């Protein structure tokens, strides 16, 4: 048994998320990963934007910031720049981070600023009523795509890799041990890290896509989120519609706040 009560604001429970929403499963994985990483809660700041997942900071007993739609990363950038010693965690969703906040995401990755972005991908705008997001799969139904989505989705992890992120992983809440592990690795990484976490939204996505029950959505993750070792052995045909999980990118490169510090020092000392 893990003592979650040490880390949460118990008075705000039960939380607001729907029955079977994956957001609570991710939150628990984050708390275990934080404990495992041994990072101090006093030196950790959790920043979110707007959306169902962005309610997370309200439930954790640490320094928290609930900001405006799509702007969690800019706020987090400011926090990290102001005090580079802090561990800065961004909680965001597919709508928040890849649509309205899409530019912030790619530029933070390009800059390689040392923040950890935990991007909950539930393929839909849950809070506002089930509109298509940039990750809604082609053919899936949404409030704005009642006959099925005709657009191709973003590969969010691929986007972060292309933009220059130093650590990118994908995880899902069915394989919850891997989810915790990927979050712990991202927390430990010096540089911009992103974990795309596949998580069910039974209310806005599942109900429209013949997976109304949370169990159905978990089974869908079980059958379609594939660990890297198995993925490597799969044919193109078998991969279609499925998602690879595990570490997708892990490189070391100059980190933004450290480079800034170097510049300041060299200007001050003239060296």
């Amino acid at each position, binding site marked *: 048994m893990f003592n979650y009560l040490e880390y949460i604001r118990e008075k705000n429970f039960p939380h607001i998320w*729907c029955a079977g*929403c994956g957001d*609570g499963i991710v939150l*628990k*994985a984050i708390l275990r990963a934080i404990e495992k990483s041994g990072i101090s809660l006093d030196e950790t700041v959790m920043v979110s934007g707007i959306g169902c997942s962005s309610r997370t900071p309200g439930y954790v007993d640490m320094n928290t910031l609930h900001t405006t739609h799509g702007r969690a990363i800019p706020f987090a950038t400011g926090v990290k720049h102001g005090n580079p010693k802090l561990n800065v965690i961004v909680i965001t969703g597919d709508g928040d981070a890849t649509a309205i906040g899409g530019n912030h995401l790619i530029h933070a990755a390009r800059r390689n600023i040392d923040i950890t972005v935990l991007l909950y991908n539930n393929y839909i705008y849950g809070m506002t009523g089930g509109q298509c997001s940039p990750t809604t799969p082609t053919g899936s139904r949404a409030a704005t795509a009642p006959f099925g989505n005709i657009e191709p989705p973003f590969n969010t992890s691929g986007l972060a890799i292309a933009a220059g992120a130093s650590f990118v992983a994908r995880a899902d*809440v069915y394989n919850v041990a891997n989810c915790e592990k990927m979050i712990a690795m991202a927390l430990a990484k010096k540089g911009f890290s992103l974990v795309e976490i596949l998580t069910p939204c*039974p209310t806005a996505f599942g109900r429209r896509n013949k997976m109304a*029950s*949370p*169990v159905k959505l978990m089974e869908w993750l079980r059958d379609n989120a594939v660990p890297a070792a198995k993925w490597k052995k799969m044919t193109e045909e078998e991969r279609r519609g499925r998602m690879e999980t595990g570490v997708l990118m892990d490189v070391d490169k100059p980190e933004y706040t450290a480079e800034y510090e170097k510049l300041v020092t060299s200007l001050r000392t003239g060296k």
Partner: protein
Amino acid sequence: MAEEQSASKKPAVIRIKLEWCKGCEICVAFCPKKVLVMEGGKAKVENPGDCIKCMLCELRCPDFAITVE
């Protein structure tokens, strides 16, 4: 106090906080030993003796409602 060395052999103590359980059925559906059932829209411990303490129910409960010791 519990003795450490025999901890893993002790029967599991599974607790469900009914005020927080939203009845999603995730714990029930994926318990490998069918220890849990649904009753009145909430999870209920039915066969605690079969529990192998895999912890999957606790790990996957979205509502912090089930714990295994």
